[in-house]
């Protein structure tokens, strides 16, 4: 019979990861994840569940990397109540991290993101089911940086869903017809990332929502600009946007202006600038 003081059997040894890095060495968990695992390992099942219920921001919040580790530690064992609760918390975390992309304002976009969210949850659950039988190395990435690994899954699903939605996956498909000259005027010297407003949550949230509406090529240009890549350079050793995306400097500038105009309009409509 379960007792509140029962200590789970599996936590004494924290199993090392098995995935190899691209360079050939083994991945290890970040030191803070490893330390948290050691701290949590001595808890009883009931205590662990209580901690896992805490929300992000609470000092005792259990990172998803650790939650995943405990779920995986049940591999090839019979599921019990503790496992069921941990499993459900983990799926809730996946749902939660995908749900904040779903806006109620735009019904079409909302539907697409709901479909993506459902697919991500399904794929993640499938990974867990496979891992329950045989170690799935791919899940090691999620024990290192859970949300970032999940973002990788998110973009894969996004590309597939969007491909079904509007067949807009090829960059070349995007470059049909040059934007009108008015667009260039509208874009002006707009610098959406280089503004004091960028430190404000509402502005950033609105900016990312605006970028999300851009076609793939424009989105890529904006991302490279955000990171400070130059559009072009005479030095052949410099990584430029133009060379990376295999487009002329003029094309890149044209689509940068078009993207800026779109973003500016959305930010203005949301009273963010």
């Amino acid at each position: 019979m379960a007792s509140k003081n029962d200590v789970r059997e599996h936590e004494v040894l924290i199993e090392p990861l098995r995935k190899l890095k691209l360079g050939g060495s083994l991945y290890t968990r970040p030191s803070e994840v490893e330390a948290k695992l050691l701290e949590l390992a001595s808890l009883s099942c009931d205590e662990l569940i209580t901690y896992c219920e805490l929300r992000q921001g609470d000092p005792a919040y259990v990172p998803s990397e650790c939650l995943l580790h405990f779920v995986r530690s049940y591999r090839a064992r019979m599921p019990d109540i503790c496992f069921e609760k941990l499993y459900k918390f983990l799926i809730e975390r996946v749902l939660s991290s995908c749900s904040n992309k779903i806006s109620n304002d735009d019904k079409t976009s909302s539907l697409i993101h709901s479909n993506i969210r459902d697919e991500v949850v399904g794929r993640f659950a499938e990974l867990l089911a496979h891992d329950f039988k045989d170690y799935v190395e791919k899940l090691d990435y999620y024990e290192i940086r859970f949300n970032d690994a999940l973002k990788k899954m998110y973009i894969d699903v996004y590309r597939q869903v969007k491909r079904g939605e509007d067949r807009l996956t090829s960059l070349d498909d995007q470059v049909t017809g040059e934007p009108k000259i008015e667009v260039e005027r509208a874009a002006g010297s707009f610098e959406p990332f280089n503004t004091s407003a960028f430190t404000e949550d509402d502005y950033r949230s609105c900016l990312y929502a605006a970028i999300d509406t851009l076609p793939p090529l424009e989105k890529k240009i904006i991302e490279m600009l955000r990171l400070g890549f130059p559009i072009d350079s005479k030095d052949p050793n410099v990584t430029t946007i133009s060379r990376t995306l295999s487009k002329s400097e003029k094309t890149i500038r044209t689509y940068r202006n078009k993207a800026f105009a779109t973003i500016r309009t959305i930010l203005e409509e949301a009273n963010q600038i």
Partner: protein
Amino acid sequence: MTSGNSQPSREDVLYAFAVELTPGRDTLERYLRDYPEYTDGLIDLSYELSREVREDEMPLSVEQQAMIDSAWQQHVEAAPKEVIDPFANLTVTAQRDLARQLSVPRQVITAFREHRVEPNSVPLPFLKRMAVVLNITAEGLRDFLGQSLDAELMRSYKADSRPESPTKVDFEQLLIDANVPPDKRKLLMEGEF
């Protein structure tokens, strides 16, 4: 393990990029230089990684709860089907405690232990309460109850003549046989006890 010498797949490259400790221009530049064939995915992922993840503060919707339950159900169905006996290590005292916590006579617990109860006749709230106390999932308890009782009962018979084939008993009949009063029986059947 994955070989470090073979050409890495798109999957491996993007996951590796996702978990890099120092994301930013230098890291992206290095990946773009080393894996130009995955340029599209790397830039898309770089953008996605720059986005903050905020946990949804809203309580779970009915739809979300259903998704979680559905994922769990699929997991249980895919899990190894070894049936465990949740009563195996239960002492007499623990069985008495279990009966007390579930508000039923000891003989009801004995019938469950010998999986003489028809699992589909047990009200779900009662089954779930018993599963929680036994630290097993409701599905696991149902699997245990669903086991055939022929083999075990046959072993326990010492009479010369072969007994009639045993059948499982409905939960309500079990309560009647255990002299549980009708009003309490009703509550147990409705899962409100």
